[in-house]
């Protein structure tokens, strides 16, 4: 079953057809979402009503276009705001953890490493509710003891950022640590023997070396945050991020405006994906 071992033609053809079918399965839902963004009809379904750009640009109800829909646009803004915070926080913690685990020895290091991986095997819904429960406990405690009502500890954008940060940090740590592991520490020592302080050596030699991994981790955490649903659902406050706003539209049944939005999302995440591939290539 490798190219150097002859196989009957029928087997090869069947195998190739299976793989081709698999890729059809993979891209089909994405293609129909994109195509129906241009359907000149009130529903994203058959019959095909002809081509239109209304679902992007039309300014009035009932055929409200995406770029005039205040609710969805504010959802995009909320998600963007959350994703920026999550990216900054989890990339910083990721860099920090990478140095901690790759460079230092300390008691209980293995236990800490295992705990660091744990968020990856906890379902997102559970992360969400546990943070919700804990922050409410703190808020209730502060309210009953010192009469302080901290609004941000109730479901809010702050809690959404915390919830997403809690597991995205693991991923940024893994990405950055993998790159740091390959770094030749002799280079840092050379910088130090040429008169740089330890911090200056890290800043001018190690961090530039880590840059592809840092950018890659930033892109991944931005996208994971932007697209997160499970954890966000449990912690969301009055400002709805895009995924939550889209979800409620989807349940109500929606116009092809949602297809237009999906197409936009696909284009942006596709662009970011290409960018991260480009950055990764720099790595080799």
């Amino acid at each position, binding site marked *: *079953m490798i190219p150097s071992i002859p196989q009957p033609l029928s087997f090869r053809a069947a195998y190739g057809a299976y793989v081709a079918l698999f890729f059809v399965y993979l891209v089909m839902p994405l293609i129909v979402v994109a195509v129906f963004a241009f359907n000149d009809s009130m529903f994203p379904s058959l019959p095909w009503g002809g081509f239109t750009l209304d679902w992007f640009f039309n300014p009035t109800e009932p055929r409200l276009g995406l770029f005039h829909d205040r609710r969805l646009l504010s959802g995009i803004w909320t998600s963007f705001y959350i994703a920026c915070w999550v990216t900054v926080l989890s990339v910083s913690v990721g860099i920090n953890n990478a*140095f901690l685990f790759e460079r230092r020895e300390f008691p209980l290091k293995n236990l*800490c*490493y295992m705990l660091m991986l744990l968020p990856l*095997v906890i379902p997102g*819904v559970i*992360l969400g509710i546990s943070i919700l429960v804990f922050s409410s406990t703190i808020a209730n405690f502060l309210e009953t003891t010192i009469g302080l009502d901290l609004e941000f500890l109730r479901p809010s954008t702050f809690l959404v950022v915390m919830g997403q940060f809690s597991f995205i940090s693991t991923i940024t740590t893994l990405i950055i640590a993998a790159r740091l592991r390959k770094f030749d520490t002799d280079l840092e020592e050379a910088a130090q023997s040429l008169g740089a302080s330890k911090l200056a050596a890290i800043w001018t030699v190690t961090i530039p070396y880590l840059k592809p991994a840092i950018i890659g981790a930033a892109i991944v955490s931005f996208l994971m945050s932007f697209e997160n649903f*499970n954890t966000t659902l449990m912690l969301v406050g009055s400002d709805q991020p895009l995924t939550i706003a889209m979800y409620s539209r989807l*349940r109500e049944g929606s116009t092809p405006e949602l297809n237009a939005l999906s197409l936009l999302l696909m284009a942006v995440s596709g662009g970011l994906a290409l960018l991260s591939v480009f950055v990764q290539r720099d790595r080799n």
Partner: protein
Amino acid sequence: MNMQTASRLSLILLLAPLVLWLLVLIILPHVDMFLVSVHEKIAPRVYEYSTANYAAFFTEPLYWNTFMRTAMMSIMATALTLVIGFPVSYYIAKMLRGRFKNFLFLLCLVPFWVSELVRTFGWMILLRESGVISGLLQSLGLASQPIEMLYNDATIMVGLVYTSMLFMVVPLVSTLDSLDDSLVEAGYDLGGNAFTVLRKIIIPHAMPGIVSGCIVVFMLTLGNYLTPVLLGGKDSMWFTQMIYTQFITRFNWELGAAFGFLLLALSSLIVWSGLKLSRQTLTEAVG
């Protein structure tokens, strides 16, 4: 300041974010959730230690059945993802070379970059009564009237397998990639047929990839919310949906926390037994 104090200080500074993160966002919340789950509301704002929430889970058939159903369907989805994804991974890893191989591998990653919401939306457009597949079947004369393909278990399964595929294919391709062709050739030279080579050489070699793929897929499926709810409709009976109902709709946090803990226990149990079966540690499987 001497070297040793400086080194200790920098270690503390490096440890602080990690400890803060794990303690405040992971460990304490889960401890608190457990504490809430063993309380019962006996009057407004009055709570008492009790195991009533767990008792309710075991005595109320709806809860128990939903839990078992979610577990069974997740196991099935994991198995299907493995069976469907393995030949494709093998094809990419061993049958192809060069640019085309890289291209197909990247194509496998595409759905990951697209939000799960968009992917599920795509399946809804394909499968609904006025959807693409129903329309296609009618125009081919295979169906005389529109067919509703949403809101049943098979559809949930299609969506779950679709969403999970990437997490199976990536670890499989990377372990199969490291299999030396000469081992497969040697298997044939020694008289093995395709089936024995697969069973004795390829699968044992791919085992670490199979295990880490299955663990991640199972866990993601168990904790999935969107796919079962959107593709399965109101009666999808998925356990995460039940947790959501208790927390947000019924505002019964004690029962919801108990449910959350049970789901976490099941997921951890499966992850742990998967690791034990394959003699791996968590660090090797996901790290």
